[in-house]
């Protein structure tokens, strides 16, 4: 738990740790964003089904320069291996709210509680260190595994974005879920 300092700047949980995104991570992201199984349920955020190294580089540059976002690489503590990316984006400091996004890139590491651990670590950081009031997220309605995970972490359903995106030959809806600081503290 906690922060290990300069030599190992990581927010730690039981299974994974979060460390800041760095430019060399483009190689991990390139692999993850070219894996159809990873992109499948993300809610059609990506225009294409693949990304080149140059495109990935441009995306990471943008992520690192965006003052309203904070991204972390999810490291499997056992073996110190990158397995995904998580972040707070659309950070609105005045209203103390932010959007959570997570992508579990290593398919072999799915179903082991790594994502839930990462979300819980990030919520602790959002509420205890960043003093946020609300963390929200958008999730594809048909991504029931993710919705259950968020519910276990304390997120509640805010409502629906009807026909939010086009996927597998039809319009699909998304859900907005959120957790408030007081709710997080009482769990």
């Amino acid at each position, binding site marked *: 738990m906690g922060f290990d300092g300069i030599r190992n700047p990581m927010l730690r949980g039981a299974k994974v740790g979060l460390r800041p995104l760095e430019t060399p991570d483009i190689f991990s992201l390139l692999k993850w964003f070219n894996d159809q199984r990873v992109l499948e349920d993300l809610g059609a955020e990506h225009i294409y089904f693949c990304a080149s190294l140059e495109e990935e580089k441009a995306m990471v540059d943008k992520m690192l320069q965006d003052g309203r976002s904070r991204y972390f690489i999810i490291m499997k503590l056992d073996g110190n291996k990158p397995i995904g990316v998580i972040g707070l984006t659309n950070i609105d*400091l*005045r209203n*103390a709210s932010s959007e959570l996004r997570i992508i579990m890139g290593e398919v072999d590491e799915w179903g082991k509680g790594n994502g839930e651990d990462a979300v819980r670590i990030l919520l602790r950081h959002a509420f205890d260190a*960043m*003093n946020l009031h609300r963390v929200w997220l958008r999730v594809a309605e048909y991504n029931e595994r993710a919705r259950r995970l968020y519910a276990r972490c304390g997120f509640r359903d805010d409502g629906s974005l009807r026909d939010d995106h086009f996927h597998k030959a039809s319009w699909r809806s998304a859900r907005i879920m959120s957790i408030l600081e007081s709710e997080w503290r009482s769990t």
Partner: protein
Amino acid sequence: MLSGSKVRLRAPERSDIPLFVKWFNDPEVTEFLLRSPPMGMEEEERWFESLRVSEGKVFCIETLDGKLIGNIGIIHIDWTNRKADIGIVIGEKERWSQGYGTEAITLLLGYMFDEMNLERVWLYCDQENKRAQRCYENCGFRREGVFRHNRFRAGTFTDDVVMSILREEWVSRRASSN
């Protein structure tokens, strides 16, 4: 625009600059400020330009009949720790000690606590500036400490008084004034 019973707060405009220059070239006005004469027009224009990218926010204090008498501003905003510091000048000397500054600060405090959702508003002022300290106390600020030798004035280092008001203090003042 924020309005009270004596003054309102509005955004500064380029056409206000000559009046600012007049104030900041008056040694009586600047005695306890962190800037001293002489102040040039172009210097003040550069300051005005810098406002657009500054993290803080400056407001003009205007009487209800439209006379510009001073400025008030939020200097730094720390959103994570929910705090900010403020500064004020009443540049028109004939308006001193008549409650204009008190009302301008109270209007700004209302915005900072009730709209910006801050926890703490603080300021520091020259230890010898008793008039200002009385005004801040009337607004609900409490003296909390001293910044030693925090400014160089009239050839010597002097101490500053640090004052602050917390959200809970603002809320109970507002409740008792209603």
